[in-house]
């Protein structure tokens, strides 16, 4: 079946602009996660959604980052007033529940110039 999909695959933006990254989880997966991978920090957790529960935002690095999940399916990660240190690959994952196996999308490579 279809895996986790993310769009766009690449995004180049100017410093100070806002960006939106999209994630479409595997159908039927109730849990959705955002991570990012950067050279200096490795792979780090950002935010977690489970069903209709309030999301766990404990990994978000600043209040410029926000995310929402509509209808328990598609999620959007928004970064406002982008900075160069936001340049990274943003990965989305989903799972049937927790703590179950997580499956990752191909990522969005964000470059802030």
């Amino acid at each position: 079946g279809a895996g986790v999909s993310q769009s766009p695959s690449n995004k180049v933006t100017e410093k100070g602009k806002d960006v939106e990254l999209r994630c479409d989880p595997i159908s039927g997966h109730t849990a959705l996660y955002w991570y990012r991978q950067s050279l200096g920090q490795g792979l780090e957790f950002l935010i977690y959604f489970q069903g209709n529960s309030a999301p766990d935002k404990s990994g978000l690095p600043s209040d410029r980052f926000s995310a929402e999940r509509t209808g328990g399916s598609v999620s959007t990660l928004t970064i406002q007033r982008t900075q160069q240190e936001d340049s990274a690959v943003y990965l989305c994952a989903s799972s049937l529940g927790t703590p179950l196996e997580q499956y990752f999308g191909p990522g969005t490579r964000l470059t802030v110039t």
Partner: protein
Amino acid sequence: GIQVEQSPPDLILQEGANSTLRCNFSDSVNNLQWFHQNPWGQLINLFYIPSGTKQNGRLSATTVATERYSLLYISSSQTTDSGVYFCASGAGSYQLTFGKGTKLSVIP
């Protein structure tokens, strides 16, 4: 939070050789996954193995939860095995904490 350490950080193998990658974690875990990150950056699931032993073709993994480590075995390595191998674990929560990875290079 949980700490995850992987060794070795880099490994160069001749095609056909066997290897063992290690992952140590600092706390009891209820989720342990091994991934292979291919050259295009995609994380490929290898094993979901919070405890016990599993095998899939030339790959196998063992997690000894009581001693807080997991091992990934690669036998008869091929050039397509090259890439970065990540161990990730979760302890009492849903988020995965990743190790820094082992970069494997298999040369013909």
